[in-house]
């Protein structure tokens, strides 16, 4: 009895126990992410099932050509029962095959891959800019909690959250393109390899639009996580030791707030993916969002489903990575 207890005790205190707990967390968390993805796939698939009436008729419209009808319904797999169709679709997804677009007659996957070089730089640059604005602003507001500066900053973020991103984009066009004539109102279709300067100029206003809206939310979150750390005992101790305030902020506050802020950046990337759809439309950027919107107009189900599902996959994966990093970065977090 005694030895068993002793062994148990040793095992619990040893790092291999912690290791096992961590591994079981990683496995569980990854499994949940896959269940979420599966359910998301079910939801995306159901879009074709809930169509009132005949989806094929919806796509070809008034053009009543029996041959085209047959080809299209075969292409959508509508000649087979829903369950078999779903099985094939899921197997295709697992192989990275998103089906064939009905309006652009090309594989959906290729269409999406050609648009990523537009959308990804937009999102990454906006995310970076939003963080660069929000970090100093949020920390500054938190350190001056309750002052006019803090209240002003909070009000400013409220206004930022209320302004629609597409309207902010329109105002930027009005100011920088129509009035000042510094930048083009509508982006030209140049690629990064052809004309890097032109591609960069195309991105300036869209990135500014997306980043400012995003920064508004981020400032509030940075402010409250810094405030939370500032109220901890170890911060009081550090101040009590007579450390310079700048040292307290850098060594104690920021280091601890960083983990929460990392989570925020992860959440933010997901929101930016959605925001990009709107902003691409304002500035006529040929990204994923424009692809999805044009697919709605032509009732191109495989393309809409492919775009929606691939963005959902990115969001779920980003959340998974952030959750896993969270534990890796902060040894205090235990999973049991």
């Amino acid at each position: 009895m005694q030895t068993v207890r002793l062994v148990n005790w040793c095992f619990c205190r040893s790092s291999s126990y912690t290791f096992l707990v961590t591994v079981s967390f990683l496995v569980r968390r990854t499994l949940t992410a896959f269940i979420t993805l599966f359910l998301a796939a079910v939801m995306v698939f159901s879009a074709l099932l809930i169509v009132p009436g005949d989806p094929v008729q919806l796509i070809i419209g008034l053009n009543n050509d029996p041959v085209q009808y047959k080809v299209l319904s075969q292409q959508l797999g509508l000649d087979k029962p829903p369950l078999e169709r779903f099985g094939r679709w899921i197997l295709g997804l697992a192989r990275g095959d998103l089906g064939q677009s009905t309006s652009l007659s090309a594989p959906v996957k290729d269409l999406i891959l050609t648009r990523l070089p537009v959308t990804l730089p937009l999102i990454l640059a906006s995310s970076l800019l939003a963080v660069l604005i929000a970090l100093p602003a949020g920390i500054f507001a938190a350190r001056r909690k309750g002052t006019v500066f803090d209240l002003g900053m909070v009000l400013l973020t409220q206004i930022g959250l209320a302004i629609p991103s597409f309207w902010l984009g329109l105002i930027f066009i009005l100011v920088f393109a129509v009035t000042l004539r510094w930048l083009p109102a509508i982006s030209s279709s140049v690629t990064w390899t052809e004309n890097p300067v032109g591609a960069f100029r195309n991105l300036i206003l869209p990135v500014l639009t997306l980043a400012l809206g995003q920064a508004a939310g981020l400032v509030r979150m940075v402010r409250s996580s810094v405030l939370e750390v500032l109220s901890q005992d170890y911060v009081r101790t550090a101040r009590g030791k007579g450390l310079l305030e700048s040292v307290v902020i850098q060594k104690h506050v920021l280091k601890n707030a960083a983990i929460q802020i990392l989570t925020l950046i992860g959440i933010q990337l997901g929101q930016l993916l959605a925001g990009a759809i709107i902003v691409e439309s304002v500035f006529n950027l040929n990204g994923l969002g424009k692809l999805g919107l044009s697919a709605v107009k032509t009732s191109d189900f495989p393309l809409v489903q492919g775009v929606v599902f691939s963005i959902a996959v990115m969001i779920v994966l980003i959340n998974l990575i952030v959750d896993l990093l969270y534990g890796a970065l902060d040894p205090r977090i235990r999973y049991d």
Partner: protein
Amino acid sequence: MTKNLENLYARKSEANLVFGALVFGFLIMCAIIGLIWTPYPPNAQDFAAQLVSPSLAHPFGTDNFGRDTLSRMLRGASTSVLVGIISVGIGSGFGLLLGSLAGFFGGLLDDIISRILDATSAFPTVLLALLISTAFRPSVWSAMLAVGISSIPTFARLTRAGVLSVKNLEYVDSARALGVSNSRILWRHILPNVAAPLLVQGTFAFGVAILAEAALSYLGLGTQPPQASWGRMLFDAQTFIYNSAWATIFPGVIIAITVLGLNLLGDGLRDRFDPQGR
């Protein structure tokens, strides 16, 4: 917190509440006026008065079809309020149902509902709108459905957390011991505790819905022409941005003020219900 700081925060949340309530009241008033009377019929075209700058006859100017911007903004307020009511209705209704089932019964049911909510949150509103409007054709109804569905997870998680926090308290146990039925315990003893956070969330969701409807209509996934909607007005205005800046400015300012008002109202209500959480 020092006395001064506490005073400052109390005054701030009081101001939020008053400003938010005023904006909300004004919005509802405009929505009702927009339904019964507008200076001009909102869809009436007047080709003698295209893209007119603000004047006495047209206080907010006219658009490219010579339609009066003020009249269209009043009718647009009705659209926004309708979208707000229906989508918050969908979100809070299903959220309350799923959240209380998950929280009250727990176990496998809780797991299943939680996974479905996770999957729903993987789709931002715009993505849901893309799916739904491909299936049903874009309309103000498909937009409401998308906005409503994407707000379900937040309402459901709030309800679930609220139910979990009170379901094992003694007064619930004693009600159960008295033989009160599950549905009555849930409805009479548990859910009233969730009412305040849900009301606050409802206020925020109303603002989100108005913002989302404007964005979806701008993208062509919401209100269809010639129906008036703030987002659609901005889409039309973009084509004529070089000729008439007015048309770009007014609807945007109104959207921003409305959403700001609703957010501040939500903040104010939250502080009122939960003064500790400031």
